[in-house]
């Protein structure tokens, strides 16, 4: 098991989304709500739309209003995961056959993991092109149904099933640990700006954490007490994701809880 695992980085925009505002209360908007009628100075960005008369910008999601330059965005508070090429996600093997593994990646379609995407390039291909058994049959023995994998998404679009790979840094089968899942839109908050929140969680609870974009978090600690505290903290972060000054508050919470529970 690798000791110093980095959390998966999402694009930089995502981090800023939550932390950029310095106001105390950020406006919660709901679908259909008018955000602004000033269409000359603002443009509709993510999660917003112009109405038919083009004199109002309205929200499409339940989320927080954010103004960036002259764009108005709505950062969703609820939603589902849409796979994008390059994402590293935690997958659960739900089915396998000689051609592919079927993986649950918490998206609308199951991911496809083909044996050719589980082999590292440059490996010697058996003795002079192979022996009696077909190589693919051997390769599908690699993972079992119920295994937890960390995979990278190779291709994903609206129509086709996403294709996965286990070749790369930090990718492959996970042994041991616990996987929990939270709402995917709240993942940037668990990571924090430049990974501040996740660093704090790692230092205070002495746990290995691996956060992925599809809302699943793998964690493993020294003992069950630490793991339990970490899980409770993550649930708390998810439920308070829309509030300000969360990192400081969480730090205080964990230190207090550690004293209360009598763990180092």
């Amino acid at each position, binding site marked *: 098991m690798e000791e110093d695992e980095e959390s998966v980085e999402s694009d930089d925009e995502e981090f800023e989304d939550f932390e950029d505002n310095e106001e105390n209360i950020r406006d919660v908007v709901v679908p*259909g709500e008018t955000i602004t009628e000033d269409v000359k100075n603002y443009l509709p960005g993510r999660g917003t739309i112009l109405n038919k008369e083009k004199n109002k910008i309205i929200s499409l999601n339940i989320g927080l209003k954010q103004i960036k330059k002259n764009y108005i965005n709505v950062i969703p508070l609820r939603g589902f995961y849409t796979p994008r090429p390059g994402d590293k996600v935690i997958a659960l093997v739900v089915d396998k056959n000689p051609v592919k593994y079927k993986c649950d990646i918490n998206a609308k379609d199951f991911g496809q993991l083909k044996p050719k995407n589980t082999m590292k390039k440059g490996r010697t291909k058996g003795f002079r092109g192979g022996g009696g058994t077909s190589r693919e049959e051997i390769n599908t023995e690699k993972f079992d149904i119920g295994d937890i994998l960390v995979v990278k998404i190779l291709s994903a679009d*609206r129509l086709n099933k996403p294709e996965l790979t286990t070749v790369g840094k930090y990718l492959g089968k996970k042994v041991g640990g616990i996987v929990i899942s939270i709402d995917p839109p709240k993942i940037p908050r668990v990571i924090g700006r430049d990974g501040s929140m996740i660093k704090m969680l790692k230092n205070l609870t002495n746990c290995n954490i691996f956060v992925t974009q599809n809302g699943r978090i793998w964690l493993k600690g020294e003992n069950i007490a630490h793991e339990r505290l970490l899980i409770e903290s993550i649930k708390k972060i998810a*439920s308070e994701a829309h509030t300000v000054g969360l990192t400081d508050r969480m730090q205080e919470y964990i230190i207090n809880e550690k004293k209360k529970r009598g763990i180092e």
Partner: protein
Amino acid sequence: MPLIIKDEYPENLFREDGKRLDGRDVNELRPIKMEVGVIKNADGSAYLEWGNNKIFATVYGPREVHPHHLAKPDKGVLRVFYRMATFSVFDRKRPAPGRREKEISMIVADCIEPLLFLELYPGTSFEVFIEVIDADGGTRCASTTVAALALADAGIPMKSLVSALAVGKIDGKKVVDLSGIEDKAGEADFPIAITWYNEEISLLQFDGDMDLEEMNEFLDLAKNALKDVHQIQLEALKSKYIKLQEETIQTKENNDKKGDE
């Protein structure tokens, strides 16, 4: 011999003091209570109490379509399942979906569909399950209202919410929000739904008799009443988050005060 109780309606649907049988004014709604996020394992959920109506709605999706032949290659499908509990009405309701259930499922789906961006999710389905626990008139309107709320809670992009309400004529007077007995004994029943994106009418059904001029008056009446319903919907969605925001600010201020001392 089974006990047969015949439906008996009162002669007057107004009391002597000019109010309706349940003590409401002509333009008064029944008490409405809404809540979101009530069912943990659903993607989105909502609960509604509208007078004596008690309705749950849950949303799942986007997910694969079952049976698979219903999937469309160019857009997603919205499927609504309206069901009534056997104990929701006075006589036991047979649990199998009948003509009425299928009709209401269809009108609720047609009512909400123009608000969703289904073309972004080809080959998938969004499923809304509406379960009526207690029914007392106007469940189709209440179901539409609560289904929109559950979809918004699931984080599915929508152009706006939709609210619905029945207006009607009882004893020659125009009233809003018909209750069960007014619905059966009254002269006309007129359910209306409005999508707040461009304020378009998304559902219009009619039963009874009235003339064209009266119909226009009813539309204005319904629109005014629906604004109140919409306001309650917005509050139900927001209150969960705003409450937490205020709490955290309060505790922060308290901590600052302690630090100063």
